[in-house]
């Protein structure tokens, strides 16, 4: 028998600040090529002695994780699973710069220790005293979805009851300069929102988004994670078949989907994928979110947060709706689609509970 997987808690630190009830009413579209997250105060969660060694990504991850646990009223999860595209890139850069600047001598331990991709999951576990399954997926733009898939399977197989799952990526100077050089990030002198974008590349931002995923439904449950599918390579011609197959294995057809949450990021060369996807589902609300929180390898985690909130509240804030279709029925099945530069396609199906 298929076990349920409920989202019982959400936490996030983004360019629009932390996850909160008025998140969408207080947000403004990003226009900068590179955006730092609005950092909350970490003093209540992380001692100054610990915080001094942590990069922003680690602190953001710890904060978002605690928010998700608090909302679900879970002290220690059975497992911690994270996804990250670039890991703790700030410390990686620091360590590598030290190697170059000091001719491979005088290598300090802190940057090395903190530079690994699993640092965030490890630091969360250390802080909580969680000795359970701890895993980090580094699969570019499906890093978070890979973590979510693992968490879903762990719950399905009854390996765990409550799982903390999240995605985190931080901004770092050198790496982001390189991403700008290769055109993944818009040039610094281009100030476009996703809505009025007319150029290649995306506005990037750092973010951390975490969820408490549980077998048990509670009074706080947002929705249920119904299914996840990942596909590295896909042609635009196969997108409809890929989606249809996913829906069919869940006993659904296109008409059963009540809203879409799409990963439009303002890259003129690749946003066409979402236009094609929208055409499979005419006349339902289409929602986007990266104009608020920016692009990074794990920004699609925020799509899950967005969809979960919509399902629970049954309201679509105007700032995240792309089309003009009025919501005329209950939001029951919400389908999320993300890709990055035509690769790493992911579908996530959320259902009201």
């Amino acid at each position, binding site marked *: 028998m298929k076990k349920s997987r409920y989202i019982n808690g959400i936490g996030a630190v983004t360019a629009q600040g932390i996850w909160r009830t008025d998140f969408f009413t207080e947000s403004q579209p990003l226009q900068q090529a590179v955006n730092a997250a609005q950092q909350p105060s970490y003093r209540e969660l992380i001692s*100054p*002695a610990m*915080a*001094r*060694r942590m990069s922003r990504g680690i602190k953001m991850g710890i904060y978002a994780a605690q928010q998700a646990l608090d909302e679900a009223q879970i002290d220690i999860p059975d497992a911690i699973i994270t996804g990250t595209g670039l890991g703790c890139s700030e410390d990686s850069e620091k360590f590598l710069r030290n190697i170059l600047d*000091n001719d491979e*001598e*005088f*290598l*300090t*331990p*802190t940057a090395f*220790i903190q530079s690994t991709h699993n640092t965030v999951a490890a630091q969360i576990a250390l802080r909580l005293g969680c000795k359970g399954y701890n895993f980090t997926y580094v699969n570019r733009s499906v890093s978070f979805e890979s973590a979510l898939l693992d968490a879903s399977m762990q719950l399905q197989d009854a390996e765990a009851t409550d799982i903390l799952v999240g995605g985190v990526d931080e901004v770092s100077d050198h790496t982001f300069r390189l991403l700008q050089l290769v055109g993944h990030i818009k040039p610094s002198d281009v100030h476009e929102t996703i809505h009025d974008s007319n150029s290649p590349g995306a506005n990037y931002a750092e973010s951390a988004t975490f969820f408490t995923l549980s077998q048990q439904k509670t009074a706080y449950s947002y929705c249920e994670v119904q299914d996840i599918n990942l596909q590295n390579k896909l042609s635009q011609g196969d997108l409809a078949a890929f989606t249809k197959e996913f829906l069919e294995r869940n006993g659904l057809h296109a008409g059963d989907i009540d809203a879409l949450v799409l990963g439009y990021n303002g890259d003129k060369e690749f946003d066409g994928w979402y236009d094609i996807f929208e055409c499979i589902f005419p006349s339902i609300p289409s929602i986007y979110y990266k104009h608020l929180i920016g692009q990074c390898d794990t920004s699609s985690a925020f799509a899950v947060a967005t969809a979960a909130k919509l399902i629970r509240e049954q309201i679509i804030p105007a700032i995240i709706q792309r089309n003009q279709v009025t919501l005329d029925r209950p939001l029951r099945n919400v389908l999320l689609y993300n890709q990055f530069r035509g690769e790493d396609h992911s579908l996530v199906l959320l259902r009201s509970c």
Partner: protein
Amino acid sequence: MAELKEELKGKIIEVLNLEDIAVADIADSDPLFGEGLGLDSIDALELIVLMDKEYGIKLSDPKQGKSIFQSIDTMAAYIAENRTK
């Protein structure tokens, strides 16, 4: 020696990223580990690298560190006596 101690305090704050501590907050005789600045074993490794990089002092015997890193006073005295740059 006073100048070296001030320089050392500044370097320690910078290297260990002691965000809320200023040079003036560190007394020359304050213990660096435990009750004083509250440094730990990872910081000790950072201090060993600092001694090597900034003053050309290689600590081959880790046991030495315990006495050398007691306070700014002991560190400065050891550096003044053994520095090669």
